[in-house]
C-alpha cells in the first residue's frame, strides 16, 4: 500500500506512545476495537481542573493506518478542551493522513477512542 508522507511519519515516529494512570480521576481511558477485527486502540487523556486536556497517550494493535490515526489524534487533542476534542471528526484525520478508502475505518476507530476516553473521564467525575 502506498501511504502518504504524513501517515508514514506517524507510523515510524508515533507521538505520545504510552500509558497514564487509569485509576486517577484526572484520566479518562478509552479502549475500542477487538483483536478479532485486527484493530484495538487504547487512548488515554489527562484533563486539568479547567477542563483542558493536558496530556494524551495511546497504544494500538493494528495496521499502519490505525497506528497513525491514533498517534495523530493524541497530538490534536492536547491543549484542547474536552468539548473541542469531542468534536474532532474522523474525516479530518482521514484527510490529514490521506487514508485510502479501505482504511477509513481506522480513523473512525480513532474518533470512537477519543469519545470513549472522554466518556470514561466524565463518568469518573460525575458530580
Amino acid at each position, binding site marked *: 500500500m502506498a501511504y502518504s508522507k504524513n501517515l508514514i511519519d506517524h507510523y515510524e515516529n508515533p507521538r505520545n*506512545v504510552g500509558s497514564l494512570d487509569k485509576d486517577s480521576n484526572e484520566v479518562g481511558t478509552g479502549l475500542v476495537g477487538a483483536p478479532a477485527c*485486527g484493530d*484495538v486502540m*487504547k487512548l488515554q487523556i489527562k484533563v486539568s481542573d479547567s477542563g483542558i486536556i493536558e496530556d494524551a497517550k495511546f497504544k494500538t*494493535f493494528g495496521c499502519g493506518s*490505525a497506528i497513525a490515526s491514533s498517534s495523530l489524534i493524541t497530538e490534536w487533542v492536547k491543549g484542547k478542551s474536552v468539548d473541542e476534542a469531542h468534536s474532532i471528526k474522523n474525516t479530518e484525520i482521514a484527510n490529514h493522513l490521506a487514508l485510502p478508502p*479501505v482504511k477509513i475505518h481506522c480513523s473512525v476507530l480513532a474518533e470512537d477512542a477519543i469519545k470513549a476516553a472522554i466518556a470514561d473521564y466524565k463518568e469518573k467525575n460525575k458530580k
Partner: protein
Amino acid sequence: MIKNIYFDYQATTPVDPRVIDKMLPYFGEIYGNPHSRNHSYGWEAEEAVEIARENVANIINANPKEIIFTSGATESNNLAIKGLAEFYGDKKNHIITCVTEHKCVLESCRFLSEKKNFDVTYLPVKADGLIDLKELEKAITPKTLLVSIMGVHNEIGVIQPLKEIGEICKEKEVFFHTDCAQAVGKILLDVNLMNIDLMSISGHKMYGPKGVGALYVRRKPRVRISAMMSGGGQERGMRSGTLSPALCVGLGEACRIYSTEMDAENKKLMKLKNLLLNGIRSQCDEIYLNGSEDQRVPGNLNLSFAYIEGESLMMGIKNLAVSSGSACTSASLEPSYVLKALGVQEELAHTSLRIGLGRFTTEDDVNKAVDKIVSEVKRLRALSPLWEMAQDGVDLTKINWAAH
C-alpha cells in the same frame, strides 16, 4: 543505503540465470513456430520443445507424451478439473477437494457446482494443515469422479500425504488430481508411485519464467479431458494454441536443474530456516508457526507474532519483501481463509507473516532479517495495548470487546 531483500519465494521466483541463457536463442534466432512441419525453422523449434517436455516428464517420472504445456498452473488446474468434468460428468458428478486449496481450484469447483450440476465436498484440514485420510475415504461415493488435493501449500508450506491419497483413489477408482505448483522441485514426486492421474505444474514457482506451466495427464490407464480452448488441436488435442519455445524451454530447464539439485537445495534451505526461526524465537516470545512443522517444505515459514498486527509489521520491515495473512493486507479485510481453516484464532491470523526462503537467499540475508524482525516486533509490542495487558496478566479472552 538499505538494500531490499526478497523473502517472498512462494509468490514468485526470479528466473535462474541458467534458465535465461537457455531461453534466449528462442526469441530472435530460433524463432520458428514449433508446429510448422515444412521447414527447419519449425523443426528446430519443435526439437527444443520436445526436449523441454522430456525434462518436465523426468522430474515426475512421467512419459513425455503425458505432458502438455499450458500458460501456468491456473490454466492447468482449470483444464484438469473442468476438462475431466466435461468428459465424464454425465456419469459421475461428485468432486472432493479441500478448504485450503488455491483459489483457482476452489473457483473451478464452485463453477461446476453452480453451473454444471456437480456436488462438491470441501474436506476440512486438521490444525497442522493436513487432510484426514479417514475423512477422505468416508467422503467418496459411487458418484465421485475426482479428488483434487494440492501437493505443497502455497501459504503454509505443508506437504499433503500424496502417496496415501493416491492409494485410496486407486482403490475406489476415482481420478486423483494434484496441484503441484509449489511442490515440483521441492519434494520427490512420482506419478506412478503416487497413483496420480493429473498434475498441475507452474514455471514461475521454480525459477522458471512466468506465463508457462504444464499439465500431466495419465495415459495408462488413459485419462480423458475435454479441451477448453478450441483451435488447431495442439498438445494432443487437449490444448490448442501455438507453444512458445522460449517459455517451454524455460520450464524444461528449470525442471532439469531441480532433477540434480533438489536435495542440496533443500539441505541449504533447512539450515537457513533454522537460523531464521531460532534467531527470532531466541529473542522474542509467543511466536507461533502456522501449519505442521515436520510435514513442511523448508523454504516456507508462516509465523504469527502475537499482539502485533501483520501489516504494521510488514511496514516496519519494509526492506524485507514478505507477505501476510492479515486482513488489512487482503482487499476484502477478511483474514486468510487458510489460517482460518487451520483453526488459528482470528487475532493470531491478523498477526501472521509468510517468510519465504529460496535458491538465492544467503545467510547474511537471514541474519539481517532476524535483526530487523526482532527489533520491529519489540517496537510494535511496546506500542500494543494487547501486549501491555498480557504482560499485566490480563486474560484477553475474557474481555468484552466493543467490536465495530
